[in-house]
């Protein structure tokens, strides 16, 4: 269900770009870099590893997919419409995320749909997504 996961989420590390050993680039996806995919980082309780390991998508517009709970407010607020739902490509906005059945393969891998910064170069650095995200999954870094 959008907005809920079965573990305590941890806000994105705002200094992830300065920690290449901790957040190595693992692949590219939809024109942006993915860091630390496959690594089960510590969850919000400070002890237990996240059950998912999707990594951080994007560089200047970075979304931590292990934190994202598909709330959708970032897709609604972005003035340049740079986010799309990862599992529902081409779809934007609250309620357009792909519903995921608990126990399914997608649930095991993602828990919820994820906000994907597919048009990262369009960012105007207004920071509206970062400030409105309820779980602080987004970090904007203007280079």
């Amino acid at each position, binding site marked *: 269900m959008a907005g809920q996961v079965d573990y305590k989420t941890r806000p994105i590390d705002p200094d992830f770009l300065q920690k290449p050993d901790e957040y190595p680039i693992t692949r590219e996806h939809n024109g942006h870099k993915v860091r630390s995919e496959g690594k089960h980082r510590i969850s919000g309780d400070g002890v237990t590893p996240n059950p998912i390991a999707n990594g951080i998508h994007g560089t200047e517009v970075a979304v931590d997919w292990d934190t994202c709970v598909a709330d959708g407010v970032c897709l609604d607020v972005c003035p340049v419409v740079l986010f799309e739902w990862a599992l529902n490509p081409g779809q934007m906005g609250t309620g357009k995320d792909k519903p995921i059945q608990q126990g399914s393969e997608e649930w095991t891998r993602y828990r919820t749909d994820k906000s994907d910064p597919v048009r990262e170069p369009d960012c105007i650095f*207004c920071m509206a997504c970062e*400030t*409105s995200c309820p779980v602080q999954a987004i970090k904007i870094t203007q280079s």
Partner: protein
Amino acid sequence: MDVKHKLSSISRDRRTAALTGRADRVMEARVRLTQKTLENCGLLVEYVRKFSEPIARDMEIKHSRLLREFEHIREVDSPNAFHEWIRSNVVPVVRQSEQAASLAATVLKKSQGEKIDFHRWAKRQTR
């Protein structure tokens, strides 16, 4: 840019509060973030006014309403209610304000001879 730096700084405070389990401090940071966001909206209104008084007036009416609502909602100690207010009321105004200011800035750049690709977004359609 001062507002953006301030937003970044408050975001860090919010993260620290979340990592230490201080829900009250997280809420306090969210309120401060919203306050700065509304302050930024006010600046955008004044910027857009240089290009279009009618659009600025429309933005100003919505901004003023948000400021009044904010004084009430900030006293409500419910993160969920606060987030729903942001989603339903703040988000459309912020989005429209940023779009209007961005359009004004882009047209200004074009008028000064800068090459602007207005169709860049459409070229990046994923579907």
